[in-house]
């Protein structure tokens, strides 16, 4: 069964179509990345999936349940870390976890054990009786995520979970999400961090101006952009513009002392560069080749910016 199934989903706010007829499926146990520039429709999509917004058209299924019709049953299956999500500053860490757990029906021994496990895992056990108001953003986000997963949800929705965090908190959170995924939870994560998406996600979906522009495995997406592979080289002296011009090279970008030569045929292009260097007595200081990064793909597909 698909954990999440979306068909022709549309959401409008007045004249603005925030989500425009999108469809996708997320398999059970999949780590799904939802990428897009600011205002692309990521948060609106998550709010639709988690039952906070009602779609104007289209269908959503969360483990076979339509959150528009039975929001409570759908919510019981999920853990949600919204974009603007804070925990209660007036409560202690433990009280925040207990509050979340009790909403999901945890009680007594179960609640105590699960809280203690998470407090230890997130490195905040010693601070469990402190009010959250004194915590840094990173520590607050640890409490937030611990609260969202206290009931061990089958599906976890995360909206920019590592935005603006310190390195330690970011790593801890990423590791926890990975572990949950390994244990079978489906992860639906929106992020600006292309590298996170590249490393973590089995499938990524890129949305721009409310429409899906690509959906595939990260490596497959990169291969569809082979024209974006390049050779980067630097030489022992200044090189005249146009020296490497050839049918093989589609674009040349000079940055500092480095030349970046884009090509669709890496093998022949490398031989060409080496030959030109040899004929002109140039010493190659460094030379490397690179395929398109997920960031290149993202920029290419989203036109390099938001609306």
């Amino acid at each position, binding site marked *: 069964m698909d954990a999440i199934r979306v068909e022709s989903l549309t959401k409008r706010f007045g004249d603005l179509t925030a989500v425009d007829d999108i469809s996708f499926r997320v398999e059970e146990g999949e780590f799904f990345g939802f990428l897009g520039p600011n205002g692309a429709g990521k948060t609106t999509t998550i*709010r639709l999936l*988690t039952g*906070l*917004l009602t779609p104007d058209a289209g269908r959503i299924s969360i483990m076979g349940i339509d959150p528009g019709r039975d*929001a*409570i*049953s759908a*919510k*019981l299956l*999920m853990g*949600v870390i*919204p*974009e*603007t*999500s*804070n*925990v*209660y*500053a*007036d*409560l202690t860490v433990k*009280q925040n976890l207990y*509050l*979340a757990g*009790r*909403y*999901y*029906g945890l009680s007594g021994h179960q609640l105590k054990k699960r809280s203690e496990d998470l407090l230890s895992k997130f490195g905040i056990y010693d601070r469990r009786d402190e009010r959250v108001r004194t915590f840094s953003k990173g520590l607050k986000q640890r409490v*937030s995520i611990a*609260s*969202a997963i206290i009931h061990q949800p089958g599906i976890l929705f995360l909206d920019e979970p590592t935005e603006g965090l310190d390195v330690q908190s970011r790593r801890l959170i990423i590791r926890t999400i990975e572990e949950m995924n390994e244990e079978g939870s489906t992860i639906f994560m929106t992020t600006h961090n292309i590298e996170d998406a590249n490393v973590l996600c089995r499938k990524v979906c890129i949305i721009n101006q409310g429409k899906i522009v690509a959906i595939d495995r990260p490596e497959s997406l990169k291969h569809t952009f082979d024209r974006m592979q390049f050779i980067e080289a630097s030489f022992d002296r200044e090189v005249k513009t146009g020296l490497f011009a050839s049918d093989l090279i589609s674009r040349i970008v000079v940055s500092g002392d480095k030349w970046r030569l884009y090509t669709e045929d890496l093998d022949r292009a490398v031989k060409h560069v080496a030959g030109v260097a040899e004929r002109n007595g140039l010493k190659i200081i460094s030379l490397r080749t690179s395929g398109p990064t997920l960031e290149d793909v993202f920029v290419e597909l989203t036109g390099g910016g938001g609306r």
Partner: protein
Amino acid sequence: MNYQVFVRGLIVTTEKNIRIYYKKAPVVIFGLLFPLFMFLAFYIGREIRIQVFFPGFIAMVLFFASSSVGPLITPWEKQAGTYERLLSFPVTVDTLILGDMLAGSIYGMIITLITLITGALFLDIDITGIGLLVVATLLGAICFAALGVFMSSPATPQPSQIMMLSSLIRFPLIFISGVFIPLQELHGAGRVLSYLSPLTYLVDLFQWAMGGAPVHHLAVDLIMLLVFTCGFLFAAHLFHKRNLMKGL
């Protein structure tokens, strides 16, 4: 509807509200200090028998206390960024509305009970109908807490704006509801306006319970409070749903 999940959500929401919002300054100021100062301002220096004034005073205490918690919760949560998380829990908007209402009702009843006990012990207050007093207090607390929740529905994440709005609504009501001027002495437009205030019917119920001089039939008072309660809850449901994601 899964009733077990609904009741659980209701209890947890109410407990959360009690734990977080009872100690907030706006609740203490608008729910506790304001009625006390209003009482002192009108009572001190005037030749009024406290027994005559007490039903109106106790109704005012219940009115201010019950309606002071509700207006604060939603804008506070929107401002603090906790509202979206709250909505992501297995609850509906109605669960949250009723949880906010219950927290306001309990606050109102506690403050009213303390005032009643103080009155009974030190002010020689004669309570002729304990049962009716309990019913009236319960009904009034729910009605005014529902009003409080309704007042929190505008789409703003600024608690100060909502508290100001709630004061604008609440203050005029105490002057047309028989709190300071007995209902018998209200004539013309004042009398007509008094019918529009839910506080009028509670003051009258307390007059019934404390051997005072009620002006409406007992059943009218009870029915009107119920009608106002349903009206406030329906309006709260409508507006909270409409403004759910606004101000996030």
